[in-house]
């Protein structure tokens, strides 16, 4: 469990394999955009895996904050508070 002052970000197996990322990371609160930027410092390139060139959540990526779907919102507008849990998932798609 994350400490009360941190946000837990959980990453799926496919992203762990693709980008050699850990399964979970901790960051501070703020916004989703800020959290991703913070993670990017430790895991370079992670932000670009989740967000497209325009800073939007990629088409086939789902992001949930405390199980609430936020993928249709701009990451800079998604507030994160200490204790929140962010799940980043690969949406159902492929071939």
């Amino acid at each position: 469990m994350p400490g009360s002052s941190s946000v837990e970000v959980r990453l799926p197996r496919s992203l762990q394999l693709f980008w050699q990322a850990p399964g979970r990371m901790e960051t501070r609160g703020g916004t989703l955009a800020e959290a991703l930027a913070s993670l990017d410092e430790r895991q370079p390139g992670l932000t670009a895996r989740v967000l497209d060139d325009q800073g939007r959540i990629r088409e086939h990526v789902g992001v949930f904050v405390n199980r609430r779907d936020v993928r249709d919102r701009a990451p800079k507008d998604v507030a994160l508070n200490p204790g929140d849990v962010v799940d980043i998932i690969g949406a159902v798609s492929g071939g």
Partner: protein
Amino acid sequence: MATAKTVVLAGTRKGLFVYGSRDRRRWSGSAPSFAGVPVHHAVLDPRDGKTIWAAVNSMHWGPTVVRSTDLGKRWHRPKQGPTFPKASGLSVAKVWHVAPGTRKGEVWAGVEPGGLFRSGDNGATWESVEGLNARPDRTKWMPGGGGLCLHTILPYPDDPDRMVVAISAAGVFGTNNGGKSWRLMNGGVRGDFMPEGKASKEDALGICPHKLVRDPTDPAVLFMQHHGGIYRRRRGDDEWTEITRNLPSRFGFPLAAHPRDPGTLYAVPLEGDFNRVVPKGAFAVWRTRDSGKRWRRLAKGLPQEDAWLNVLREGVATDDHDPAGVYVGTTTGELYASRDEGERWATVAEHLPQVMSVSAGVLSGSAV
């Protein structure tokens, strides 16, 4: 004495497969890199005979360009791959092609939707070539069946300011000022999707180049597998001339040039755009040695019955040996090699995922 190790890279729908051989008879491979992820193109950088560049396009996690200097054991994943400027409103969907440049540290990437990117620092950062990507006529570029992909990048080996690129289905573009401005090179091309008898004007959009290669002895001589025919463009020509001649069909995707011999090309004609498989279920690579005056069917060692397969635009490659090796990968997951310029073929691998690209190179001594 051991000879140099030849490496064949097969980019597939489910990862990159690397094969190596010292005699081009016995091939060894290893587990795929980026397993499960489409690799549209990969190439061994001829400048050092060591670096592999790969265009990796995750359905979920997006596109990027990665590099390895140890045959794929470890990959350098950049912080940011090719990325369109915010003002464009565009996002890179896939990287279709990677081309080592002529300057030190220079690498080029062709992307969908129709874009060219340059890195001057070995892929660490990328810049959009706005002279092409932000052309006012961009709104009229139409995607081909595979998407609006920039799939061919041909830098001039002796002039870094010159380059030819191809976008399906906008056309062929050339620059002679380092990418500041580009001119269309679409003249003379006809197509089944165009009114009968009508040839494109040089500066008109809308031809569908599937693959371009250049002549090994003269970088100004170009060859193109178009949606409707194979074409040649000589130095100084202001339009393309069709050289399909005795091929069974105008339609196909890949085109490869011999590493040394002028006018020697390899193509894989298909039934047609209405049925994108090899004719009659019999697989053959066709070769010309005279710039398309005559094409010869090469099929020894390739399946001649019930082979309902296709070869995609990056699916044929040659190596630098003498005699040249030729390699072809299929949509049904076979990889074939010829060590005698296409006369006889042997199976390197089968049951691969759909092969999207094949390239070949010779490892430098220090990389073996």
